[in-house]
């Protein structure tokens, strides 16, 4: 196995935050006192990421996601702990470090708002000192896959959100970064535009071996793209593993949807619960630990004539919501 591109061990970032008083005379007390409380934004986080991985990094707002990303990108100095990215300590060598990174923040653009897209790309060539041949090769490739041509000469302010996102992703990759940070890359996009962005992220990850770290609220991004997810909450890493394991451990019930070939007065079967039944159609729920899908199908087809069926995995969104709410992973 290749040595990891990111090594994080016992990483901490603590902030002193001013305490705010409430109630009577709160304003005055806030003005005159300087009480601080310690916020552990990132609290003893450890993980490693191998080159070429595509990792989803998720958590509710204020969980410590962006603090972690800021430390990985060299914008923030850790309070303690170790952090190595591509052989460097990010904050110690910010400029050399960021030359190896690409970053896209869905909410903001790095492009020049009032100028045609191509002018921003040309300037980035200069800023990242990209050799002409490589710049041409990359630009030609991205223009084709991301279909940039119709709007390369359009000012950024006139682009649709989806177009702007494609332009921003192109801008983040022109210098062949080893590591790509994507923050909410599909936010606000329609289904088609989302799909196109996801396809491109996969393409870059597979064809170029670019390591990708994706933070998002849209868990279908994670579902479609990431083999591995990390979940952070209250500064602690709650889960680090594959989506399958996440589902298996916390996934709740699976569902089997059945269309019968004829009507039955009762469609009960052992090992599963009927949650929905109407003329020739039923939905069963069953525990992953209690019975496998094929066993259940076997039992059903022994009793009834079945025309069609489908297994529905528990929604990842639902799973993660349960993890946050029920503190399933609290240590």
């Amino acid at each position, binding site marked *: 196995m290749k040595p990891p591109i990111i090594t994080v061990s016992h990483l901490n970032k603590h902030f002193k935050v001013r305490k705010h008083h409430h109630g009577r005379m709160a304003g005055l007390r806030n003005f005159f006192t300087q009480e601080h409380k310690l916020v552990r934004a990132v609290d003893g986080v450890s993980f490693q990421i191998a080159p070429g991985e595509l990792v989803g990094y998720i958590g509710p707002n204020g969980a410590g996601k962006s603090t972690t990303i800021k430390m990985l990108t060299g914008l923030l100095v850790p309070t303690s702990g170790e952090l190595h990215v591509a052989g460097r300590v990010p904050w110690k060598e910010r*400029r050399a470090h*960021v*030359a190896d990174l690409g970053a896209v923040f869905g909410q*903001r653009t790095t492009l020049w708002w009032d100028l045609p897209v191509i002018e921003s790309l040309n300037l980035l060539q200069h800023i990242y000192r990209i050799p002409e041949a490589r710049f041409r090769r990359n630009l030609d490739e991205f223009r084709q896959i991301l279909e940039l041509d119709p709007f390369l000469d359009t000012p950024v302010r006139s682009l649709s959100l989806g177009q702007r996102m494609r332009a921003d992703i192109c801008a983040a990759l022109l210098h062949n970064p080893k590591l790509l940070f994507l923050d909410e890359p599909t936010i606000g996009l329609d289904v088609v535009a989302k799909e196109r962005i996801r396809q491109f992220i996969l393409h870059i990850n597979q064809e170029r071996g670019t390591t990708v770290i994706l933070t998002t609220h849209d868990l279908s991004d994670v579902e479609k793209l990431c083999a591995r997810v990390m979940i952070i909450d209250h500064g602690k890493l709650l889960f680090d593993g594959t989506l399958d394991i996440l589902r298996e451990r916390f996934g709740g019930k699976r569902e089997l949807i059945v269309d019968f070939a004829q009507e039955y007065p009762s469609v009960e079967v052992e090992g599963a619960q009927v949650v929905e039944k109407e003329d020739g159609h039923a939905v069963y729920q069953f525990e992953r630990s209690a019975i496998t899908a094929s066993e259940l199908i076997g039992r059903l087809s022994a009793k009834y004539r079945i025309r069609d069926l489908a297994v529905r995995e528990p929604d990842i969104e639902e799973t993660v919501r349960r993890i946050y709410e029920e503190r399933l992973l609290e240590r």
Partner: protein
Amino acid sequence: MQWHLAMYRRLLAMQLRSQLQYRASFVLDVLSSALISIVEFAATVLVLQRFGNNIGGWTMIELALLYGMIDVTYALTDLFFGGFDPDYFAPMVQRGTLDQLLLKPTNITLQILGSTLRLRRLGRIAQGGTILVVALALVGVRWTPAKIAYLPVVLLGQVGFFGSLFIIGSTTTFWTVQRVEIINVFTSGGRVAMYYPMHIYTKWVRRIFTIVPVIFLNYYPALYLLDKPDPLKMPALAPFLAPVVGFGLLAAALAFWEFGLRHYASTGT
């Protein structure tokens, strides 16, 4: 170095092209900025006339020289150091724009300088420049090569001074988040104070302006250009301190800025 200059030039060119996209509003901006400064100047002239056209023994034209220099250099600072204007910089930190610049593998100071170019200040520069040129023509300077060489150095020193105030003001927002009004005491206060000959102020005010050394930036160079005797009896070197003060403060401000950046990296916002 050369590469950095090329990048800075390209950043400015991007700003220029951005703003020329809105031609009508650009023209209006320049005109209104010129108009405002003309009205300001007219108001000052009207006030001065009440004092019998002279303040502390300086004629209207001599005063116009003081006024013109400061007007031009302040507008130049505003044009080129706009990225460090605390009013522009504080929101940049809050919105995360600064972080985006820090993610680019190049000098952060140049990027901020190149992040805005307030072309509407051209109006004020033209107006201040006109006052300065007219004043220099009418005031009867006995030009020597030394004076001709020294004048641009003085102007640059003043730009350095105002620029350093911008940088200090912006850097303090790393601690305060909001921009701090006190910096304006120096920026606006210092600017207005320099419109007038320093010997008209009482002793303690002058002392303040010696400590915050604006006295050397405009008044003393003007004494030298006009061959006026020094009523304050400072060392003979005083007229030549303008570049030392201007660039010295700028260097100090940049050091403070570097310190502020390190603080920012350990706290964020």
